[in-house]
C-alpha cells in the first residue's frame, strides 16, 4: 500500500523509476494507492512497470471541496491476481469493476453520517489456484476540515477522523464482507489506507484509534483489528537537523490495515513497513519526500496455506 501524489501532468516530480523498483523489489501482488490526482499518473506508473504484467484502475470520489479532491488507485500483477469474475447462469462472465463505494447504510442513531471521502472498493481473485477472494476497501480518511497546520492540537479534526474510522468499521465493513456474489468463494475483506490516526503502540504523540473494534452485526459480535504500528510518515520541515543526536525523520503512524480477527484466524496476516527512505534514498528523507512520497509503503502478507 503506497501513497504518492502529484498535481498535474506538467508537474511530474515523482521518480517513477524508483517507484517501479520499489514495487518490483518487494514483489507486491496488489498495491492500493491514495492521493493520485490524475489517472495519467497511474498510467505512467503502469508504463514503467510494464503493462503486459501489471494492470490498474483509478477513480475519484465526489469531493466537497478542493482539499478533498483526489483519487484512489489499485495496481495489481496480472499474472498473480485478477479482478473478481462472476459466472452468470447462462455462461457469460462478468468482471467486477472497482468503484467508489457510496451505497452504505448509516445509522443516525449512533451518530453516523456519510463519509466525507468515500473509499474505493475492489475485489480480487488469486490466480495461483486458491479458491478465495480478497476484498479491499481503499480509504484515505479526511485529515481535517480546514487548512489547519497545527495537527496535534486540532482536536476537532481528530474527532472527525475518529468518526470517519467508526463509520468505516461499523457501517461499511460488514456490508461489504458479508455480501454474497454468485461465486461461492470465501472472502477476506481488508480496509487499508491512510487513516491519519495512530496506534497507541507506535509511540506517536496523539490522535489514537483503538486497536480492536467490536462491531455488532445482526446479533453476532465481530472484532476488527488494526495492524501496522510502525511510523510511516515523514517529517515536513526541518524540525531539527539530521546531524543532531536523536533526530528521526519519522512523524506519525498513519497507515494501517484493518480486518476481522476471527475471519482471518485461519490465515496468517503479517504487516510490515518497508523503509524505502533507507533502501532507496540513502536515508535522505527530504529526497524521499520530493521524489517518492511523504509516506513509506506498508505491506500485508497473507498466507492461505
Amino acid at each position, binding site marked *: 500500500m503506497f501513497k504518492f501524489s502529484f498535481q498535474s501532468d506538467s508537474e511530474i516530480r515523482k521518480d517513477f523509476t524508483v517507484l517501479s523498483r520499489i514495487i518490483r523489489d518487494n514483489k507486491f501482488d496488489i498495491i492500493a494507492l491514495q492521493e493520485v490526482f490524475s489517472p495519467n499518473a497511474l498510467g505512467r506508473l503502469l508504463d514503467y512497470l510494464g503493462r503486459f504484467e501489471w494492470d490498474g484502475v483509478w477513480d475519484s470520489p465526489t469531493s466537497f471541496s478542493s482539499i478533498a479532491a483526489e483519487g484512489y488507485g489499485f495496481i495489481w500483477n496480472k499474472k498473480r491476481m485478477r479482478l473478481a469474475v462472476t459466472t452468470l447462469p447462462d455462461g457469460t462472465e462478468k468482471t467486477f469493476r472497482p468503484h467508489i463505494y457510496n451505497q452504505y447504510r448509516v445509522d443516525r442513531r449512533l451518530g453516523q453520517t456519510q463519509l466525507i471521502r468515500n473509499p474505493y472498493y475492489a475485489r480480487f481473485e488469486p490466480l495461483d489456484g486458491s479458491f478465495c477472494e480478497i476484498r479491499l476497501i481503499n480509504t484515505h480518511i479526511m485529515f481535517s476540515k480546514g487548512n489547519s497546520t497545527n495537527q496535534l492540537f486540532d482536536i476537532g479534526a481528530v474527532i472527525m477522523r475518529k468518526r470517519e474510522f467508526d463509520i468505516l468499521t461499523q457501517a461499511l465493513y460488514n456490508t461489504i464482507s458479508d455480501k454474497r456474489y454468485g461465486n*461461492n468463494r470465501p472472502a477476506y475483506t481488508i480496509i487499508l489506507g491512510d487513516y491519519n490516526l495512530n496506534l497507541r503502540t507506535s509511540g506517536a504523540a496523539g490522535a489514537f484509534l483503538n486497536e480492536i473494534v467490536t462491531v455488532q452485526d445482526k446479533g453476532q459480535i465481530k472484532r476488527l483489528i488494526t495492524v501496522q504500528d510502525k511510523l510511516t510518515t515523514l517529517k515536513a520541515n526541518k524540525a531539527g537537523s539530521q*546531524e543532531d543526536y536523536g533526530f528521526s525523520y519519522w512523524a506519525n503512524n498513519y497507515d494501517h490495515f484493518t480486518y476481522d480477527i476471527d475471519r482471518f484466524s485461519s490465515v496468517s496476516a503479517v504487516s510490515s513497513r518497508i523503509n524505502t527512505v533507507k533502501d532507496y534514498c540513502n536515508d535522505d528523507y527530504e529526497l524521499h519526500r520530493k521524489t517518492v512520497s511523504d509516506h513509506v509503503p506498508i505491506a500485508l502478507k497473507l498466507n492461505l496455506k
Partner: protein
Amino acid sequence: MKRELKGLIPQGDEKTITNQNVEQIEQDKRKAAYALNLCTVSVSQIIDYEDLNILEQEYEMILNNLNLENFPKDEALLSILKQLLDTITFFRIYEGDKQMLDKKYQHKMKNAIWSAIPNFTFVAGGNPWAFAVSGIAAVGMGYMNYRKEKAKISLEKEEAQWQLQKSAIEQFNGLRRELFDTAWRLSDKYGFKDEYRLTEKQISAYNRILMDPIPLRKYERLKAIEQFFYAYPPYWYYLGNAALDVADIYNNSEYRDLEAISKYRSFAEENFSKFLTYDHSLLRTDYIRSSCCLEYAALLLESNKKDASQRVKDLIANAIKCSSDALDVLQICALYSLRIDDKEIAQRLLRKLVIEDFNTITNAQLLSYVYLNIAIENKKLFDKASANYKELIQFADGNMLIPWVENVDMLNEKGVTNLITQFLDKQKERIQKQFIAVVDKIVEMHTIEYNKQLFQPRNDYYLVEDSFYLDSDESINNRKYEYSILSQNQTEWSIFINNLKNKNIALVLDNQINKVLWLLSLLVSQALKRDIEKICSVDKLICSNNVGVLQVISKLKTKIDSDKFDIDNCYALFQCSFTYIMSSYIFSFKKEAVSKIAEKCNINELISIESELADFCKAQKFPSPENLCEEESIRTNKEIKREFINVLDYFDGSDDIRKNAKTEQELINRLDSFEKSKKLYNSEGAGQYDVEFTTDEEILVKQRNKLSKKDLTNITRYGNILAYFHDNKAWYNRYRDLYFFRKGLVLLSSGAITTKIFEYFDYNAIGYDSSDHLLFADINGVKSEIYSSDSVNVRAIYELIIELRKVSSSKPTD
C-alpha cells in the same frame, strides 16, 4: 418443445429417439448422475476427513483420473472441475511427505506378506503357496487401507501434520457448493431423476458411516440408506466390504458362528457382484473396481469353493486391467496369483514390482523362489529360469536372493535344501553384521557421553566435534596433547580438577554403564525376544579384568579429591577408558547374540529380527542398520582423492596461497556452524529483532553493494568478506555492522547521528569485558569499544572470535 440434449445422450429428432432402446437411455442418464455423484462425493470426503493424505488420494484416484470421454460435456462442470484441481494442487503435500507414507504402507504390506507366506522349503509337487490370504487382504490397497486406519481411533502425534488447514476447508466448502449448484442444474438439463443425484446431507451421512470403526454397525447403517445410492455404484462395494469385515470378526472371535460367517460372506459376494455389474468406466484407473475384484477374489479363496480358481483368475485379470500400473494393486494380484498357482502371471507382476522398486527385497526374494520352483517342476525350463534369475540379480542385491543352482542335476531335494540353507546363512550373516553395528553404535554413543562429562578441553569456549571424545587411539592422543598444554597453566588445571571432583567419576561411570545395559536389554527384548540375562549375564561385567581397572580408577579418584592429580595421573585415567571397561562384556554379549541369530532356521523369523532392528534404530534416532554397517566400512577404508595436477606450483608464493585458502575454508566452516548453532540470541530478551548474522553469499554481496564507494575501497583491502553481523539498535543509536575477514573484523557504525565509524580490528587485539557485555579492542594499551548489547549474546561472539583467531594464526595441518 425440443429439449437440447448434449453429451451422452445422442442428439436426434423425435423419431430416432423413440426408436432407441429406452433402457439404454436410462443407463446413460444413470451414468451422467454417477459422474456427478463421483465428483461431489470426492470433494465431500476431502472436507469431512480433513486430512491432507485423503486430499492427495482423492486427487490422484478420482478427480485427476476422470475419463472425460464418458463424462457429461458441460462447460460449467468442466470449469469447476478445473478450479477444483487447481485448488487441490495449491494445498497438496510435498513429494517427500508422500514418500514417507508410501514407505509406511509398504512396510505394513511386507510384514503381512511374510507372516502369511510359509517357510521356503523344497516342495517336489503340489502348491508351495497354500497360504492364507486373509492377512494380506486385511492390509488391502493403500487407498482403502489409509481410510481403515483413520477409522480406528489413533492419537498419534504425526496426525497433526496431516490436518487440513481451516482456510483450505473453507475454500473446499466453497468449491463443493459450486459443484452442487452445477450438478443441480445439470440434473435438470439431462433429465435424470433428481433422486439419482446425491445431496450434501446424504453424502455427509454416508461419509460418517464409512468412518464407523464397528463393522456390524457400519453394515447396518449403510444398508439402511440403500435407496439413495441408485446412481452411485461404489456404495455397493463399501457395503460388501463392510459385510466381509463382519464375517472376519465372527471368524476371529472366540464364539465362531459358522452360520453368520457364511451369511455375511454371501452378502459380501452379492454386493460385490452388484457393483461389478453396475459400474461404468468413468475413471481411467479404477481403484475401487480393482479393490472390489481383489476382495471378491480373497473371499472366494477363503471359501475354498470348487470352481473358484477360474473365477479368481478372471477377477485378478480384471483388477490388473483396471488398475493400469498401480503398484499396490499389482502386489496383491501377484500374491493371489501365487495362491492359485498361476506362476506365469505372478512372475510377470513380481518382476514389474521389483523393477519399479516397490517392496523390492521381498518381491525379489519371492521371485527368485518362484524361478526355482518353475525349474524344479519342469527341468526343461531350467535354462529359461536361469536366464531370468541372472536378470533379476541386476535389479536387486544378489545377497538377498535365494542362490541359484549351477546345473540341472542339482535340482533335487538335497541340492535345493542346500541352496535354501545357504540362503538362510547369508541372511543370518547380514543380520548379524547389522546387529553388531547397532551394538557398537550404542557403546560409542555412551562413550562419547561419558568422556564429554569428564573431559572438557581447555577453555570451555571451544567447540569440538564428537570424534574428540571417542576412545580410539587417535582421540586419546588428541586428548593427551590438549591436557598436557592445559596442565602448564595452573589455574586452568585446577579448574579441570575441580570439574572432575564435582562430576564424581564413580557416579558418571555408574550412570553410563547402566544406560548402556538398559539400551542393550531393550534391543534384545525387541529383536531376539529374550531377556538380557539369558544372552549375557550382567555379572560378567564385573569380571576380574574390570575389578582391577575399577581399583585403579578409585585410586585416581582419591588423588583427585585430595588435589594431588597431575598430568601423568590424567594419562592413566585415559587408559582406563569406558570402552575398555565395557569391552569384555560387550564381546561376550555379541558372541551370544550372534549365535542366537544363527540358531534361527526360519526365514520369517530372520525377517522379523531385521525389521525389529530397523525399528529400534529409528526409535533411538540412529541411522538405519544398513547405514551403520556402511559407516564401519567407510571408516576403515577412506577414499583418498587423487590430485591430478598442481597448478599452484607454477605461481610464486604457492604455499601461502594454499595456506590462506585452507584457513579461509576453515574459518567459513566455523562461522557457518556458529550461525547454525544460534548461540547469538539470548534465551531471554528480544533476540531476533533487527539483529542479523549471516554467511550467505547473496546477502553478503547485497550488503557490499549497499556500501558507499569509499567504504567499499577500504573494505576490500582486507580480503574477502566471510560473514556479516548487523545490529539495528534503537532508532536513536547507531546501528552496528561487523564484517568478518580472515585476520580481523571491520566495524561499520552509522545511523541517524553523525560520523560514521569505520575501523579495522585484528582478531588478536579483541578482548571481552563480561561485566559490561562489551567487546573492546586493546591497541597499545588503549581500550576502545567495539560492540556491546544487552539482548545479544556478546560472549558467544567473543568465543567465535577466539576460534577464528586460533584458526587464522595456527599452522595448517594436513
